[in-house]
């Protein structure tokens, strides 16, 4: 099989793997899957990047990638961590954003630039978050910390539904 086709097969397999915490999203849609390289005919190296440094789902992601690539015929699967550049929500694909919204999770807006000192914000983060259930713009931030490290908690004041919002980082 040609190298290009092997690579294509490896990519396709890696891109099927979903996120353990957000199973409606693939790791590729989430922007966590950074690289897929075929080193030899049945040897593939995959790079993933953590959303947050302490993300406890990394081991599950690794296992799922190994399982999927093994069943696609790769005998040797290495999963590496890529720390630089740091993950940003800007890497979530349009398909990923749509999948989040369908699942009732509000997708992130554009991430702030963090090159210089990060300015202090004493007021709740200003975001234009629409309710993923009824699409009302009347939403309140409940907490900047939510069910996972990457989400904030909101509530809709129109339909009263609580929901998660993926924080811009």
């Amino acid at each position, binding site marked *: 099989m040609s190298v290009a086709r092997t690579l294509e097969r490896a990519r396709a397999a890696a891109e099927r793997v979903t996120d353990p915490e957000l199973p409606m999203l693939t790791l590729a849609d989430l922007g966590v899957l950074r690289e897929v390289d075929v080193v030899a005919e049945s040897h593939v190296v995959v790079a993933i990047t953590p959303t947050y440094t302490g993300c406890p789902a990394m081991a*599950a992601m690794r296992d799922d990638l190994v399982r999927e690539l093994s069943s696609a015929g790769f005998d040797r699967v290495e999963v590496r961590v890529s*720390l630089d550049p740091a993950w940003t929500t800007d890497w979530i694909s349009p398909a990923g954003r749509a999948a989040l919204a369908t699942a009732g999770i509000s997708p992130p807006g554009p991430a702030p630039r*963090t090159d210089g000192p990060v300015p202090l914000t004493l*007021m709740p983060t200003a975001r234009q978050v629409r309710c993923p259930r009824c699409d009302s713009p009347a939403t309140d931030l409940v*907490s*900047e910390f939510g069910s996972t490290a990457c989400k904030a908690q909101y509530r809709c004041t129109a339909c009263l539904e609580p929901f998660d919002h993926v924080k811009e980082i």
Partner: protein
Amino acid sequence: MESHIDTPPEDEHDSAYSGLLVNDAHWAFGTDFEDPLAGVDTTVPGDVDAATLATYALMLGDDALVMSHRFSEWTSNAPDLEDDIALSNIALDLLGQARLLLARAARADDSLVPALPEGSPTPPEDALAFFREAHQLRNVRLAELVNGDFAEATVRVLLFSVWRLALLERLRSSRDHVLAAVAAKGVKEVAYHRDYAARWFVTLAGGTEESRRRLVAALDQLWPLWPELFDTHPVEAAAAEAGVGVDPATVRDAAEGVLDQVLDAAGLERPQAPRRAGVLGRTGRDGMHGEPLSRMLAEMQSVARAHPMGQW
């Protein structure tokens, strides 16, 4: 453990344990990702002293480890669910930073890693976390204090993260790839911690007489440990000189500028209390700690130490 618990002979659906043992990788302790730095360029820049880099990484890692453990103690104890989740998330972010920093320290200079019985599967970052004595930890003393009330937690997160964020912002340009990467990610995380604490600080200051009284008491209690954060330890000076670390004295103005904004918004001033002295001049960075750290480590390390051959 090395020999896993035997699967009971009965139908596996009858055993509450069978599902848990299918995939040990899902356990949080150790997380079984064999090498958190797999694939990361860990080459020490040629002109940098490896022991200096390692000890510097250990200092930042120990700050995160100890602070993380203290804030994990808040889990299920915060005043409401949202803040319980917030404090647990802060602990988790710091634990992640600690893991990478301790792994970095071990990779740069493995002579720092405590020796374990031959064949122990304990990864080096776990050996550093669970098999060192209190006097071998390099964290600042602010991180190790016994938890107080919610006002104390608010003030401690504020002081710690205002300082750490100022350090990490500068550390992003470290010549060491791992420290630079940890800093780039850490800036995003710690900015959330700082702003969370700053908002609660202003809220408690403007809340009731009781909330303000508690906040002021916490600030007065912790303030003597603030100057220690900006002391320059010789290792920090050497790391800064080599372009891999940040001299904390150089971020004092930036940090105090941010802190003053929070104090202004809260209608408070910097306390006047003098700094807490070290012991014969030695402080947290020298391995000089209070008794509470030993008690904390006794609990935190007991399981790992009881099973040095354990596979988690």
